[in-house]
């Protein structure tokens, strides 16, 4: 027994005597890699995919409700309440709110870390992509919150309370960032390959994409008269750069190789249609097009309607956004759901094509509508009517309709640009019909910029003429950076505007 005791004592002491350092050196993470372990090519796809997911879910959803496209069935009266009621405080909440601020800055961080690594490794293409995407996201933030941190943002604990800059300044700096990004890409020696899930390393398409994003940003400030000099100077830069804009057949699509597995499907398809098991999801039962939208398609004899929606009892029937009163006519069974391949003889339908359909970041038709508007305003060369017809044709093609159907459609007096009284309004109306539920956020942006098209307000709006103009700064920001928030003035959702929204 004494012997055992001595052994025990010695074993205790020997552990102490053994090099303490190596005994304690067990803090290398065996579960996950760290920054230094990973190449740019293993980071970029995840960042780009985050952009796509945010565009098609968080932003598209808010835009679809506030851009006049969506409402809910009677059964889902209580869903999406904060959106229907323009409940700014609810939306800014960190629990049940819509965390666009947080999500966007997180995505910006992903690109910023890639940019830093790319600059160290002199991988200009990656740096360029990051800059273009950072510009994209910063402008999205301005569109939603107006003044936001830019110079002091993304510094981690070095800048725990970043200073806000005016929305206009952030727009300008974002456009400059995109300009730099295009240059970086064009001068880069090595291009990414399949890890570039937008353009597979195609420099020209990246440049065109960058220019299109810039054009969109310039059009967004079209109503701010003091910006006209700045706008023309920036247009000149784009023209000088020379790559042009996304044109026919040139889409910014994201497809990492979607699989028929939960969480790996096309996010729009999985969120609004069916899951990997083929079962219908609740959103498909609850969300419906508005009556206004259905009537617009019908008034223009639009063949896209057939591809987009299902009939209920033989006819197309929409709902009223924010309608607080349940009525049988707006029940799920009595209204038009989105049409998918299952209801289309297993052929791709208008919006719902397949679990692995690409996510649309910026479509050729949106780009062509932007060019049509820019030409109409005399900013760029070319005939607005041509861009316009091409845009409609591209939209028809996306929805699965033929060129001749597009021509017939465009030839109608109510559609043809030439016969419009207000040509800008007609471009915006057709753009609105084309980007329906695809990039709906732009519909809300256009509505705030131009008041077009004139879709009805939410029936749960706090007052008849109160429209959502922005989001309030989020609760997390109030808790961590309150002085800066207070310095920006009012952030009321229905009365305070972002800088480019002048009425």
């Amino acid at each position, binding site marked *: 027994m004494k012997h055992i005791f001595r052994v025990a004592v010695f074993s205790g002491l020997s552990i102490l005597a053994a090099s303490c350092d190596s005994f304690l050196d067990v803090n290398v993470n065996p579960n996950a890699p760290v920054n230094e372990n990973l190449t740019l090519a293993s980071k970029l796809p995840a960042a780009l995919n985050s952009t796509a997911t945010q565009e098609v879910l968080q932003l598209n959803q808010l835009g679809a409700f506030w851009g006049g496209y969506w409402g809910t069935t009677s059964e889902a009266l209580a869903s999406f309440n904060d959106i229907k009621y323009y409940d700014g405080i609810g939306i800014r909440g960190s629990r049940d709110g819509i965390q666009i601020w947080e999500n966007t800055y997180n995505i910006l961080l992903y690109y910023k870390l890639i940019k830093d690594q790319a600059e160290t490794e002199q991988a200009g293409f990656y740096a360029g992509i990051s800059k273009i995407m950072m510009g994209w996201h910063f402008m999205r933030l301005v569109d939603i919150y107006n003044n936001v941190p830019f110079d002091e943002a993304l510094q981690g604990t070095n800048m725990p309370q970043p200073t806000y800059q005016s929305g206009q300044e952030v727009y300008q700096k974002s456009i400059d960032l995109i300009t730099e990004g295009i240059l970086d890409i064009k001068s880069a020696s090595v291009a990414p390959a399949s890890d570039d899930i937008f353009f597979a390393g195609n420099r020209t398409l990246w440049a065109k994409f960058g220019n299109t994003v810039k054009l969109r940003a310039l059009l967004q400030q079209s109503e701010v008269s003091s910006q006209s000099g700045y706008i023309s100077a920036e247009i000149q830069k784009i023209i000088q750069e020379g790559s042009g804009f996304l044109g026919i057949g040139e889409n910014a699509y994201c497809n990492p190789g979607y699989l028929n597995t939960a969480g790996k499907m096309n996010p729009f398809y999985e969120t609004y249609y069916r899951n990997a098991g083929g079962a219908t*999801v609740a959103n498909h039962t609850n969300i419906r097009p508005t009556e206004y939208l259905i009537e617009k398609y019908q008034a223009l004899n639009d063949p896209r309607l057939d591809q987009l929606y299902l009939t209920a009892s033989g006819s197309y029937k929409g709902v009223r956004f924010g309608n607080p009163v349940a009525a049988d006519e707006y029940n799920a069974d009595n209204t038009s759901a989105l049409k998918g391949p299952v209801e289309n003889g297993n052929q791709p339908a208008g919006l719902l094509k397949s679990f692995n359909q690409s996510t649309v970041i910026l479509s050729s038709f949106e780009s062509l509508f932007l060019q049509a508007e820019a030409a109409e305003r005399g900013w760029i060369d070319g005939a607005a009517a041509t861009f316009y017809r091409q845009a409609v044709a591209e939209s028809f093609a996306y929805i699965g309709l033929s060129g001749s159907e597009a021509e017939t459609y465009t030839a109608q007096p109510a559609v043809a640009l030439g016969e419009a009284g207000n040509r800008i309004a007609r471009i915006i109306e057709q753009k609105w019909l084309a980007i329906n539920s695809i990039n709906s956020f732009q519909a809300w942006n256009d509505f705030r910029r131009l008041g077009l098209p004139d879709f009805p307000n939410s029936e749960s709006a706090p007052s008849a003429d109160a429209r959502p103009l922005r989001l309030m700064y989020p609760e997390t920001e109030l808790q961590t950076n309150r002085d800066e928030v207070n310095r920006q003035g009012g952030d009321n959702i229905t009365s305070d505007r972002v800088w480019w929204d002048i009425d």
Partner: protein
Amino acid sequence: MNRLYTSILLLAMYANVLALHAQEHVTIRGRIIDQGTSKPVIGATVSIKENERSGSSISGSEGGFTIRAHVNQTIVVTNVGYLPAELKVINEQEPVLIALVPDNRQLSEVVVTGALGLQRSARELGTSAQVVDNEHLNQGRVINPLLALASKVSSLRINASDATSGKTDPSVQVRLRGTRSFNRAQNDPIYVVDGVPIPDIGRLNPNDIESITVLKGANAAALYGSEGVNGAIMINTKAGSRGRGTIQFNNATTFSNVFLLPPAQTEFGQGQNGVYSATTAESWGPRFNGEMMPFGPPINGVQPEIRYAAPGSDNRLEFFDTGVTTQNDISFSGGDEQSTYYLSVQDVRIKGVIPGDQSARTGARFNGARNFGKLKTAYSVNYIYFDRNTTPDGPWLSVYTQPANLDYSEYRNWEDPNSPAHPLNWYNTVSSTKNPFFMADNTRNTAKQQTLNGRIELDYQFTDWFKAIYRLGYYNTNEDTRAMTGKLASPIGARNVNGSVEDGANTFRRLNNDLILNFNKQFGDFSTNLLLGQNVRMDETKAIGVGASNLLLEDLFNPGSRIGELSGSSRIEQYRSLGTYGELTGGYRNYLFLTLTGRYDQVSVLSKDNRGYFYPGISTSFVFTDAIPSLKDHRVVNYGKIYASFNRTGNVTLSPYSLNNPYSQSGGFPYGSLVGFLPSLTNPNPNIEPEFVTSYEAGFQLALFNNRLNIDAAYVYSDSDGQIFTALSSSATGYNNSIVNAGRLTNSIIELSLNGDVVRNNSLRWNLGFNFSYTDNQVKELYSGNEFRIFRQSYAIIGQQYPTLKVSDYARDPQGRIIVDENGNTSTLDDNTVLGTMVPPYLMGLNSTVTYKGFQLGLQFDARMGGWIYSEVVPRMYTAGTHPATVAYGRQPFIMPNTVIDNGDGTYSPNTSVESRGDKAFWQSQGNVQINTAAKGDYLKLRELNLSYTLPKSWLSNQRVISAASIGFIANNLFIIRHSSNTLGDAESLYNQTDGYLSFRQIPPSRTYGFNVNVTF
């Protein structure tokens, strides 16, 4: 605290009894032993009760004594620290064995389990310690020993996530002397079983526990290292005792029923806008009329019907079962001169109040000890098998948001495809309001957990002043978990249920190794005690999960038969620490003590530069009743001690691998060969340093009136600064959180314990114990900004207590009246209103034990005051139209009382004409004003009741099989008095480590009552 042992004098007599004449002198020989340890009691006084002057005898080194007495006289045995024992002299007797019962009421002699599990005289301690013995612990026959501690120790706050509810495996939160860390998961005390720290004691058999010593505050636990910063709960398990072996059998069977449901209306049923709907789950229909109405969709062409009326006063109760808990416990113990053993087996079965919920726990413990001359050995093995099968949170949520016209007794049999109860026929298609019986059956979580805990202790006495102790502890848990949901296919999206399964395997291993050298020497009036120790700790965790979110078949739960890809994860964690520590206690004449402690820790989770840290402590105690001659043998003051301490304790609450930012694949990656890594959004800090808690404590202990009244009072201040916590960051920094050394919390605490015998005579004894604490906890500093949200409505706000309830409130005029607009609608303020702390600052416990002959009535009251609670259940009831407020005005337009109209010029006039609509939109908006669903959490409850009857010895005297037996009635939560504003639920409710939070996921609390049988062989 000093608890009273049963004052039953155990007399084991090896005697033949013969009556003799009264005046005959006899010589009594015997031995005196300690009833608990069976060790001889040396120096006890033996005297003749009837003739004090006849002289007395003192027991010798083996406890033996001899005294002469007359027949029919009574000999009295007294010794400090024990209750007096009496023995009637009957005859010339065989040697008698007198077992003295320790009297822990005598503060002067209290022995506590101090740091490192070593027994220490309480008089040396410069800090507060309180002891709960087996009997008080098990008064309510509570399954979980931590829950059994609730309200029995001052400043000890125990809450359970489902403690008072019917779920079968509550998780327990333990807080000693307030909250010290913003890192909510890092406020638990250390649990030490027989000297070995183990991570969890919730599944320990409470019957195995001899006593629990609660060492409060960082000071007492300094020698345990950082984990002791939140106090220590020291558990001594039972050891056998020398002498005849005993067998104890105990059965307790209890029944539970839910109560304190938030009230519901029974006037309006299903529908919308006052119109009946056969397919709506919300209660916005017309007033009940008792007529038959269509219910749900037609089934095979037949339209089911329902009587449009409330079937009873509360249809929701039909959903719940009566819970049944059965405990069977048997133990064997005994020993001889050199060794002791204790063996126990316990089986606990719980059937929950939610249909189908159940758990079972079977555990066995073997404790043994053997002496080999100077070497003492002790060892123990504890094995616990735990099995749980429960449903997650959906069913109750479904019940309280559905109309009062449902008769749940009709829907139990949901499997019948022709029944309206079948999920494909259920009247509504909203996924949260499915048939609750279907939800409970269709979604199951199971866990099978095995715990093995072993200990070896060697104690070698080298010389009379030096011994060494070596202690090895091993703790291992293996857990198999499975979560499964049955597939239900329907063309209606909201009816669809994805079949899924998630299998998990979690293991945890801990090796704890202590070597302690103990030097103990007396120099004249001075005593010294030096402890030097070294601790090595190794923790290893592995968690594996494999699952499929889309199963192919309805009844095959295996990831192999899935659609899509397999999901899975695996995580390994290692933690190691090395500690070297010392404690030096100097005593002067056994009344003045000074203790110095110091410890140097090294932990694996910090960088090489920061991972070693030292922390000191000092404490002193002064027994003034021994030091001041005039107080010696004072008639009123029997014992008095004052003490004080200071400590600065280092702590590292960081998880392993937190110094670098880990990248992971999310957002669906990898897609085949395409990988995509994203960084964590918590900004790491490679230079994190240990945090330090500084604490001061001062207090006194008094024993008055012949030790009948004991008082223990303390003031404590602690300041935790430079805290390691995951702070909320402005997302504009890129990260949502940052790991920082920032933040400061202070606690000022007053503690008071009183214990005394109100009545003490031969047949009746009434003991009352009362404990009280007031904790003023304050947030002093945060990382960035003045506040952050801890969890939903609970916040850390500088200058406020932590956590604080902050809720939305109405826009009001300067007099506080609610403003309504021209439509009668109210509006809420942009900024939320602070109501107050969610942790009750005032904690009180009252224990009353009345013993009369064989009867004993034990009561444990618990009161907590000054906190706020918040319900998430009630807003949902407003929306669903089931809350009584929604029918207060008959669903008609009404003028909201005490409201004003804004005149637009800064003045307000009382509203006498503008009606509010009183419809769903209105009431839903009222439910969303969070101040409407907050309440004061004050309560007083009868936590435990135990009425027992011990069979008289005489009944058992004719046989030798059963030596003692008792039967009892036990009840928990028998009554509760709540603050008048609280109709929300039980204020003790805990959710996600947030006190006072009634989550929509939690089921109501339950009341328990049952029977207990205890037999000793």
